[in-house]
């Protein structure tokens, strides 16, 4: 896959397989997925709901142990590492969770949640940590008055932003965003996307973005892969894939994407702008 001349990819996922154990036996959620992302690149993962995107994301950051395959981050295969060997590398690969509420420790205030990774990063001074956390929260658009609140006291979008701030606080080299902006209104979303791009320009951070909104995908990613039922069915430059998708599913996806500017007319409308071949039913 890699040309000999090209620089080694920053993240290479090779033949990744992830199973879930269920009482009824293992369920394969990710099925021989391979791709790679260069340093400073950003790759979008799109696909049908339930196709294994989150699973893939969790396997990349090694919250799940893959059945087989490799996740090579900057030359190190994370998949094979023991928890202890992995721990020092953890900070480099962070993730924003799809479940913003569940992934926040309910007994900590927003500020402490964001300050936690700073402590790990070696910021010893408590006041300094608070200041940094406050700044991060500010950057994702959370008001200063909200810093002392606990997760239960926030709106959905605000929780999501706390999750983003926490992930950024680690100053990772790789950030996996699992639907990180799905609960944000478009203007805040734009603000967050700006922030991510800005950071990328500054620090060369690499993104893997899971999103359903193709507009967001287009804005943030340079490349994309399309998953279906745990397998990669299409990949390429984002612009190209969005402009002329080849796989029937991708085409259906593209067709179903709603562009407010493009919708005309009154209800009832043909919402089923999807051709039957594309829904996969």
């Amino acid at each position, binding site marked *: 896959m890699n040309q000999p001349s090209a620089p080694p990819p920053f993240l290479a996922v090779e033949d990744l397989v992830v199973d*879930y154990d269920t009482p009824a036996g293992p369920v394969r959620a990710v099925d021989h997925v391979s791709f790679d992302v260069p340093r400073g690149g950003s*790759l979008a993962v*799109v*696909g*049908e*709901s*339930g196709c294994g*995107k*989150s*699973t893939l994301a969790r396997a990349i950051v090694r919250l799940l142990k893959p059945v087989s395959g490799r996740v090579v981050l900057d030359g190190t295969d994370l998949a094979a590492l023991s928890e202890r060997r992995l721990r020092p590398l953890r900070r480099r690969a962070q993730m924003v969770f799809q479940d913003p*509420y569940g992934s926040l420790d309910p007994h900590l205030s927003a500020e402490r949640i964001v300050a936690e990774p700073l402590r790990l990063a070696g910021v010893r001074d408590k006041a300094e940590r608070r200041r940094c956390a406050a700044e991060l929260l500010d950057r994702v658009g959370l008001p200063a008055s909200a810093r002392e609140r606990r997760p239960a006291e*926030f*709106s*959905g*979008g*605000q929780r999501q*932003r706390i999750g983003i701030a926490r992930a950024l606080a680690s100053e990772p080299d790789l950030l996996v965003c699992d*639907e990180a902006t*799905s*609960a944000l*209104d*478009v*203007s*805040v*979303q*734009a603000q967050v*996307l700006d922030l991510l791009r800005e950071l990328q320009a500054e620090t060369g951070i690499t993104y893997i973005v899971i999103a359903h909104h*193709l*507009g*967001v995908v*287009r804005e943030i990613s340079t490349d994309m892969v399309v998953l279906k039922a745990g397998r990669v069915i*299409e*990949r*390429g*430059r984002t*612009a*190209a894939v*969005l*402009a*002329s*998708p*080849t796989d029937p*599913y991708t085409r259906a*996806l*593209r*067709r*179903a*994407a*709603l*562009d*407010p*500017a493009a*919708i005309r007319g009154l*209800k*009832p409308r043909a*919402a089923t702008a*999807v051709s039957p071949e*594309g*829904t996969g*039913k």
Partner: protein
Amino acid sequence: MAEDASPLLEVEDLQIELVTHRGVVRAVDGVSFTVGQGETVTLIGESGSGKSTTAMGVLRLLPEGLAVLSGTARVGGEDVVADPEAARRVRGRTVSLIPQDPMTALSPVHTIGRQLGDALRLRHPGLSRAEARERGTRLLDQVRISEPGTRWKTYPHQFSGGMLQRILIAIALAAEPRLLVADEPTSALDATVQAGVLDLLLDLQERTGVGMLMITHDLGVARLVSDRIHVMKEGRFVESGPAERIVERPTHPYTRTLLAAVPALGPWDEDGLADHTPLGAAR
């Protein structure tokens, strides 16, 4: 379908204040709107502006010790602000809710079948377990959960976020409500499934005249399904109007900012003629 001229939901000057440890927060500051039969009214607006609070307030689901409601909110003619009992009566019958955060909205220790079945049997007390299961699987199928039969006995943590969201939609529909309050019902769904679900909802609206109060960030969705849109910011409506007008001729600066911020999808080759990087080279 009840031939009732009065709106399904009539909110007037609704104000919701949250009494927190840090003082009183006014989350919703005097909003008024109505949702009539067969109508879809959409709230869009800033994150944290009070959309969910409004929705929950209308259902009187905010903790009694936390929220102080004032104004009126009549659901099917009954004012739930004045009478908490009325809210209890209408919930699960006249009105049902699709909550915002699907991952925490289901009891983790009960199977989804149990929770969906319960919802069904609340609506139809006579239903046997088997019948409930039969209807339930059909509902799951309608929201495009594959293999609903085998998934009936699985637990929420075994589902993806989008699947849970669809299950919650199925549960909300199980109540066969006259009014559906949907808080970002498709935010975790990909476009094809979203289309399917919206189709289902619109079809339902067509058939039964269900009224919908919808909250969404996706202006595309808002544009598609809404009759009226209210733009919310800091607890108030900054702009209200028919969907087309809001999307096409926004007057308030905030609405304009919002519309301007919508990520563009870009052009595409609908016929699939242009070629692009072939499969296999991801760079």
